[in-house]
């Protein structure tokens, strides 16, 4: 009984350590190909990276915009509900502007991309592993990290922060609609109030978070893809895990950064 328990704990620990070691090898190799690849001839598959940018970034614009608009509207209404009581309705502008740029823009975009792109990475790489395509790449002398992971990482690292900017803009516009349409605030006053409330650091904070979230989504998605074993069921399992782990790690990182920026920002 005790030896069984010890055996179980040992096996779990070993498999967790093996997974961590595979994860760190992946991170190591990806960073190498991201830094060295672009300097080498044929070191980076630019056309694939651009294709990925379209899939990750351009195609996600409608959903990111729609969700950001809704959240902007919700934020403005909830803020108005509280602020009206103290007669400070105009501060809706500050509240919406700052919380969208510093927090909700990056977080929402990251969660959408974890569901859209992180899962796509895992499913793509995972099914390639099942059909021996990854082995075929290695057998041809092509590094799968360079071939599959590096273009995806490059694309998501550029696209996530770009989507954050779109999300910021649309989210603030959502607040704007509520303020002018429902709260009857003056158009120009609300605009000036928003501009005065926001400083560049707010937006940069959001973009920094966005970049970190992009790294998380990319690594988690690709790592889960390479971890697929067995057949279609394995792909499904790892795809789900890429989304769940991705979102979990995004929120942990967000919490960490928010504390950090609160203390030192």
């Amino acid at each position: 009984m005790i030896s069984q328990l010890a055996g179980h704990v040992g096996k779990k620990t070993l498999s967790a350590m093996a997974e961590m070691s595979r994860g760190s090898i992946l991170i190591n190799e990806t960073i190498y190909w991201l830094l060295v690849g672009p300097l080498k001839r044929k070191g980076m598959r630019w056309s694939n990276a651009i294709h990925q940018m379209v899939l990750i970034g351009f195609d996600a614009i409608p959903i990111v915009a729609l969700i950001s608009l809704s959240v902007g509207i919700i934020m403005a209404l909830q803020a108005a509900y509280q602020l009206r009581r103290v007669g400070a309705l105009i501060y809706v502008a500050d509240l919406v502007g700052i919380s969208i740029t510093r927090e909700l823009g990056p977080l929402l975009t990251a969660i959408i991309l974890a569901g859209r792109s992180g899962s796509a990475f895992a499913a793509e790489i995972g099914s390639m592993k099942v059909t021996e395509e990854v082995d075929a790449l290695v057998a041809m002398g092509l590094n799968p990290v360079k071939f599959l992971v590096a273009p995806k990482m490059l694309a998501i690292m550029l696209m996530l922060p770009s989507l954050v900017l779109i999300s910021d803009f649309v989210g603030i516009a959502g607040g704007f609609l509520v303020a002018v349409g429902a709260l009857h605030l003056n158009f120009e006053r609300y605009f000036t109030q928003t501009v005065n409330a926001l400083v560049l650091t707010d937006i940069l904070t959001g973009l920094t978070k966005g970049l970190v979230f992009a790294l998380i989504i990319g690594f988690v998605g690709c790592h889960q893809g390479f971890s697929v074993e067995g057949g279609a069921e394995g792909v499904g399992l790892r795809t789900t895990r890429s989304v769940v782990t991705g979102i979990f790690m995004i929120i942990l990182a967000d919490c960490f950064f928010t504390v950090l920026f609160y203390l030192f920002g």
Partner: protein
Amino acid sequence: MSFDPIIQVLGLVTYYGDLKVLDGVSLEIPKGLITVIAGSSGCGKTTLLRHMIGLLKPVAGNILLSGKDIVSMSKKELYRIRTRQGVLFQSGGLLNSMTLADNVALPLREHTELEESTIQIMTRMKLELVGLLGFENFLPSQISGGMKKRAGLARAMAMDPEILYFDEPTAGLDPVTSAEMDQLILKLKKTFRMTIVAVTHELSSIKSIADWVVMLDQGKVVFSGTLEEILACENPVVRRFLDRKPGQITYDSQTYLNAITGIDL
């Protein structure tokens, strides 16, 4: 028969979990000939092949390729060596997101500095060799299993390798297509003088293509010699395989009872 070995496998041992798949396998592959690694399903022949192309690392043992040990070789060296060998996977291993022409051209585009026009001509030459000229713009999902294998072969041939590996070249093909595949393998040997290693359990294939046969059983080499020698071999395991006799499963009542109840009675 004395020959010049291009690959020497020395005392290879490997496990899947607790299961010993290869148990001290030693063999030699003659240069410029067709070697067939034969054996019934689950005898470890595909695992052996994956070790020979460097996809798996053994627990113990060495694999010498032209005198150099690939087990202790660095990743970089391994990738360089792989550009001089071709592998045809069981299901073809084609990249499903690319057309046949792009699949065949991939190693050339990634490893050589050839002009795009030259690459296209070479691609068509390789596709012609396997009888797939005219299918350049088809995706792997649009062609049959036999065609996928032939396209995979065209890609494996792209870099004019010194050694060509086949994993079950005729598995899952109808008798006519199988015979065509065998003819193609013989043609490659005759035209390009390459060393060919094929893993298969198809008797008719073995009889028509093999110069040299290595037979595995339960992770051990039970026979290695020329085709004539194996056909005359008296070893019971070899005979059972060649005469297609089912293995005798002998149970005494006690072991049978233990096996089905799962309890050591």
